[in-house]
């Protein structure tokens, strides 16, 4: 066995969508082995088999409880050695990037974050394409390493199940860990009430500098409510303290993937586009017909959002 090893994160008991995208990409590199940190009774073997996974290595809470990034990486290092893996992948999530960074540091090997394509090129060479500038640029690169380490840009790689499900074997694995691997570990507690999440909202009404101030967001909130969505904002809005950072859409805020993004008074800086490019449809409302947001939008209305949003609310209420 010498295929790729994929760290699979669980989300509510099922494989996380981001991890399934990583598995989808990994299939082009050989028979996929998954690594899951969970009780073996809770491993979603059926779903993994549907994605072509042939082997699952389960690390049970008795061996390693909870999230400890360096210990997870040490576990992957041991499994990669034992299975003769040619590549180790994870989703380009906070945890995936963190664990693979640790694995790179432990093994002294390079790690390529947020890849959209990886192709073996003979020997220890892989050719790859990865995100720079949060996906606004692509980098073509070559990796020379005995085991290729990379994370997958999950917003650019499709979630595709295998043509035929694989026969899957579940192995309980006991990692060899040092005490230092467990120094840093997460203590988890429920996060504060967040309301509808920006990252998963179906409609996002965006407000930028054009909103004019902290007291200008009420019409945007009302419109978002009518559309069953939430308000998102550009970086200038959070930097000015008009709105909390958790509402920021952008490279250093939240990446959104709604059906509709209605960008009001937002010029469309690259930093912002990195966060909203995943929207299916974009409509811009802006006083400036030359604003960069217009070259990323499907439709635009040229004009003042302070007049257009109330008129839109009225039109929607009249339907």
């Amino acid at each position: 066995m010498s295929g790729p090893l994929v760290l699979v994160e669980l989300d509510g008991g099922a494989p996380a969508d981001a991890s399934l995208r990583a598995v989808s990409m990994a299939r082009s590199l050989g028979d996929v082995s998954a690594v899951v940190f969970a009780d073996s009774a809770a491993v979603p073997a059926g779903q993994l088999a549907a994605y072509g996974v042939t082997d699952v290595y389960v690390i049970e809470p008795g061996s390693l409880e909870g999230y400890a990034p360096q210990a997870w990486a040490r576990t992957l290092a041991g499994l990669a050695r034992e299975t003769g893996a040619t590549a180790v992948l994870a989703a380009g999530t906070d945890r995936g990037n963190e664990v693979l960074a640790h694995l790179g540091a432990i093994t002294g090997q390079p790690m390529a974050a947020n890849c959209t394509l990886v192709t073996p090129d003979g020997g220890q060479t892989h050719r790859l394409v990865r995100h720079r500038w949060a996906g606004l640029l692509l980098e073509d690169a070559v990796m020379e390493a005995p085991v290729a380490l990379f994370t997958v840009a999950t917003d650019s790689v499709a979630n595709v199940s295998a043509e035929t499900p694989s026969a899957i074997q579940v192995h309980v694995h006991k990692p060899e860990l040092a005490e230092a691997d467990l120094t840093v570990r997460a203590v988890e507690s429920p996060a504060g009430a967040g309301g509808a999440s920006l990252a998963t909202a179906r409609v996002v009404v965006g407000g930028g500098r054009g909103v004019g101030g902290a007291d200008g967001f009420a019409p945007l909130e009302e419109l978002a409510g009518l559309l069953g969505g939430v308000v998102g904002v550009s970086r200038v809005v959070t930097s000015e303290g008009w709105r909390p950072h958790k509402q920021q859409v952008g490279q250093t805020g939240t990446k959104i993937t709604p059906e509709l993004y209605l960008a009001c008074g937002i010029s469309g800086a690259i930093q912002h586009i990195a966060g909203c490019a995943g929207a299916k449809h974009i409509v811009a409302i802006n006083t400036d017909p030359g604003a960069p947001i217009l070259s990323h939008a499907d439709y635009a209305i040229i004009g003042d959002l302070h007049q257009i949003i109330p008129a839109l609310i009225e039109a929607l209420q009249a339907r």
Partner: protein
Amino acid sequence: MEILVCVKRVPTVGGKIAVTPDGQEVDTRASGFSISPHEECAVEEAVQITERAGGTVSVLTLGPAGAVEQLRGALALGAHRAVLLETDGREFGPIATAAAIAAEVRSGNYDLVLLGNEAADTGDYQVGVRLAHQLGWPVATGIKNLSVTDGGVVARREYRGVEEAYSLPLPAVVTVKEGINLPRYPSLPGRLRAKRAAVETSAPAYAAEGLRKEALRVPESSKHQAEVLGEGVDAVPALVRVLEEWGVLS
């Protein structure tokens, strides 16, 4: 508390990003330079910690001579000392970057090293972690809340709707994200002090890495010019029709 903050000079790309004809870097003929928002917050966090608990904030960058501009920017925000690890213009990979920073850390007496979670340009997501391993220090990444305890720090972040808290003994490495604080604007006295401050400079060794950039390119994405529905409130009915067509009105 002795804190080192690592920042990186990157192009301020504004509304458009383009690549030089040789495909090797971002075209900066029409842009200025700045540091990532994550790093602005790292500087602010360090300054706030020393304002409360005393100590020194050193700011470090690995980059060309021009990166002194970004060091002075951090000094103007309250950092006390600046270190330039000057490169010859070649792009250091994450392994060489971490090694160069580690050498500076070992030569000092630091309790805490702060970095941004990822650089805005290369997005490697690993320099902080590699640095920690080289030093044998604990590390937490993507942190949105940091508090200093007796002999350590508690670093918090959110993941899939769950708050994660990490307790780290010092010395430690922490990478932060924008939102951990709201950075201040530089004061006039701060800017004047920054202008006069000395910058300690050294030249770390470049080393090639197993991951080699061949070229950068702008993705052939769905970039298109918007169709203008009209001007002002007169265009609202047309917008409602479009929203109906897309099925977003339930």
